[in-house]
């Protein structure tokens, strides 16, 4: 058995800053590159009259991938004397950022690679920013290709200062900044004499100083319900302890419903009942009383419950081909909750490579941009800020079928207090749009009431119609009561442009007929 658990790493950085060469070098210096493969590279390089290049290992595969997808990924596993490593994403994909993000989201640590001759470039900054948004805090910077600048200390220090400055602005303090030459092997596995001025760790030494981050200790209990299995006369609530620990016999509360319960048992198959389960464990839970809670509810200890959140402000990265649009409706997935939400504000739109705010109060966020946004949720969910609890403080945004963006929660706001009901006045004076009278409630997720003036009904009596775009089923219920009360007809359509009700009136007031199932007085 290996001494320590596997550490999952991702390598980020600007194109051509030496990622392929570094991977080849890491395999070679840790004895993970089969001799046969090494000789193959040597032979090919000789045949082509080039000096030996580790990058060829990856480049050769790259060429193959022009026509297929073969990549020798057994090679993405390497070992130091301390533990095994997995490089989650190997280079060379077309949609590189999507893969970098997929890899980084699952990684324990990152190597940020910077070309010592070129310095910090666009993708260096973009990748660093994404690492920060993904909450990756174990970062080592490798300043590469120092052989090209004669291993000059002043040049290294220039690049170090530049990258440290940028990382600080996105909230990352690198554990180490290591001067290396991946091609020539300086400071990878062993300290190089050519950088005698550097007394820090080698790159592998720096990696060995990191920790696997799967376990989140010291945070309050969060147990999102994943599914409910009914059988053998009991209801078992299945889920994974995201943080803290779940103890049999403890008093607990579900959020956002607020239902309280006492944990009767914590179970795993073929094991005696557990006294407790810790972060990362998938278990089944039963309660002393019959309960009915749904997937998405989060169990926590009383006094430490997450808020029932109605509004989320977040930093978000957008990977969708279509822009993210203000006032549009999206599905957010946070832990096991899934909720429809309206994008109610785009406070700042940010260029992900320069961190420049390109627009305030924007209408859209484009592919590869980052933004600070606010979502209004159509029903409350349990959530934390990322700072309080990363596991319940991050979410993805779905468009159509697929995940198109991700965000980390900066602020949460719970249900509006009573009295904050929005009152919508329906009067004779209505805004007239080209296609008729139009009231947009699609961003009003909270309670709504209608006040109807006599002039409004009269105008409908003249044959006009009014379209109302809805946000919640609650609004539909109120409008149908209104239609019933005032003798109006209505149609309801749920389509690509959202939920729409059209109110109208046919014929004079005295006509007794029905329209669309509603009586007309």
């Amino acid at each position, binding site marked *: *058995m*290996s001494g320590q*658990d*596997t550490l999952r790493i991702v390598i980020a950085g600007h194109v051509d800053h030496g990622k392929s060469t570094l991977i080849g070098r890491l395999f070679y210096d840790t004895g993970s590159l*089969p001799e046969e493969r090494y000789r193959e590279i040597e032979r090919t390089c000789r045949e082509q009259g080039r000096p030996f290049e580790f990058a060829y290992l990856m480049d050769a595969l790259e060429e*193959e991938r022009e*026509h*297929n*997808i*073969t*990549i*020798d*990924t*057994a090679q*993405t*596993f390497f070992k130091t004397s301390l533990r095994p490593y*997995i490089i989650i994403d*190997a280079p060379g*994909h*077309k*949609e590189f950022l*999507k*893969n970098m*993000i*997929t890899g980084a*989201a*699952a990684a324990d640590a990152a190597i940020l690679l910077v070309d010592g001759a070129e310095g910090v470039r666009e993708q260096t900054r973009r990748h660093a920013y994404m690492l920060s948004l*993904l909450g990756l805090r174990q970062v080592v910077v490798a300043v590469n290709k120092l052989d090209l600048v004669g291993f000059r200390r002043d040049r290294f220090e220039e690049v170090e200062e530049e990258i440290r400055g940028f990382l600080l602005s996105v909230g990352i303090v690198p554990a180490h900044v290591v001067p290396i030459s991946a091609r020539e092997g300086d400071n990878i596995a062993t300290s190089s004499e050519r950088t005698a001025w550097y007394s820090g760790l080698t790159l592998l030494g720096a990696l060995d100083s990191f920790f696997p981050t*799967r*376990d989140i200790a010291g945070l309050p209990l969060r147990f999102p319900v*994943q*599914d409910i*299995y009914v*059988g053998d006369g009991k209801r*078992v609530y*299945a889920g*994974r302890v995201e943080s803290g620990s779940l103890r049999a016999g403890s008093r607990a509360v579900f959020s956002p419903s607020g239902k309280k319960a006492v944990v009767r048992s914590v*179970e*795993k*198959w*073929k094991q005696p009942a557990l006294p407790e389960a*810790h972060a*990362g*464990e*998938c278990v*089944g839970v039963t309660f002393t009383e019959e309960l009915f809670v749904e*997937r998405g509810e989060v169990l926590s200890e009383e006094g430490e419950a997450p808020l029932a959140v109605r509004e989320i402000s977040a930093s978000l990265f957008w*990977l969708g081909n279509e822009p993210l649009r203000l006032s549009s409706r999206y599905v957010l*997935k946070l832990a096991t909750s899934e909720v429809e939400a309206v994008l109610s504000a785009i406070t700042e739109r940010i260029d992900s490579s320069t961190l420049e705010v390109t627009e305030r109060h924007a209408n859209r966020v484009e592919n590869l941009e980052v933004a600070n946004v606010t979502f209004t949720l159509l029903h409350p969910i349990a959530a934390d800020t990322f700072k309080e609890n990363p596991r319940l403080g*991050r*979410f*993805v945004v*779905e468009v*159509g*079928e*697929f*995940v*198109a963006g*991700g965000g980390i929660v900066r602020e949460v706001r719970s249900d509006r207090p009573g009295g904050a009901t929005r009152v919508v006045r329906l009067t004779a004076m209505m805004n007239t749009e080209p296609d008729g009278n139009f009231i947009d409630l699609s961003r009003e997720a909270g309670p709504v009431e209608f006040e109807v003036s006599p002039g409004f009904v009269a105008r409908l009596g003249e044959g006009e119609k009014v379209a109302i775009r809805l946000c919640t089923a609650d609004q539909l219920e109120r409008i149908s009561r209104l239609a019933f009360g005032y003798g109006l007809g209505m149609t309801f359509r749920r389509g690509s442009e959202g939920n729409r009700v059209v109110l109208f009136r046919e014929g004079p007031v005295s006509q007794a007929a029905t329209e669309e199932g509603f009586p007309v007085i």
Partner: protein
Amino acid sequence: MDHLDALENESIYIFREAQRKFKDLAMLWSIGKDSTTLLWLARKAFFGKVPFPLVHIDTGFKHPMMIEYRDRMAKEWEVDLIVARNEEAIRSGASPEKGRFACCNALKTQGLQQLLDRRGFKGIFLGIRRDEEGSRAKERIFSPRDKNFEWNYKDQPPELWDQFNTSFRPDTHVRIHPLLSWTELDIWEYIRREEIPVCSLYLSKDGKRYRSLGCVPCNFPLASGASTVDEIIEELKVTKTPERAGRAQDHEAAYMMQKLRSLGYP
């Protein structure tokens, strides 16, 4: 939590997520060590009772010991087993002598596709691992296939924070890969820890054993003295021979596995 516990929990989470999101699920059980480990994890995830059927694609070329093991375990573990065969191809004499690519594609891929068409399964669990073969390394955990069974590996949606892509168009099915993060060594260490019974073809006999199980004509045992699970684990720690070295279809022609896989081979 140790390494195997972390992998086990990750797989269980994926199983439960899929079970919640899809109605018509099935699991491919090739009788090998990986999909048998997968079956064990499914039993853990659902407290002993696997809520979906298991599918064995029988090419007619499987070793009798695999069939015996399959039927014995299916009975003992009370699983709903579907044995699917591409009868038409078998009748018309599909065999590796007429070309391995055509044979694999007809008996395995088409055999699976026919079953999916007939039974309308929307999600299939597979025991593939990233470290086992090139094209498998680029897989997502939830990986959609279109109605022609094809895999668009060049433009896969991102997958992060265990938020899997689970809503797909009606004409697609999704491959679900709970073992993607496991290595061959992890599988054997887990088999040892959990005491999962495996097909005896894996254990050395007369100086040879199978590293990977397949069809009799195209799968060859490798030289090995490892006759117990402990010995297999020791062997794997030092071997330089790839896992699928004995699988002829991987070596028949350049990129054959990748071509097979883009057409829907597991």
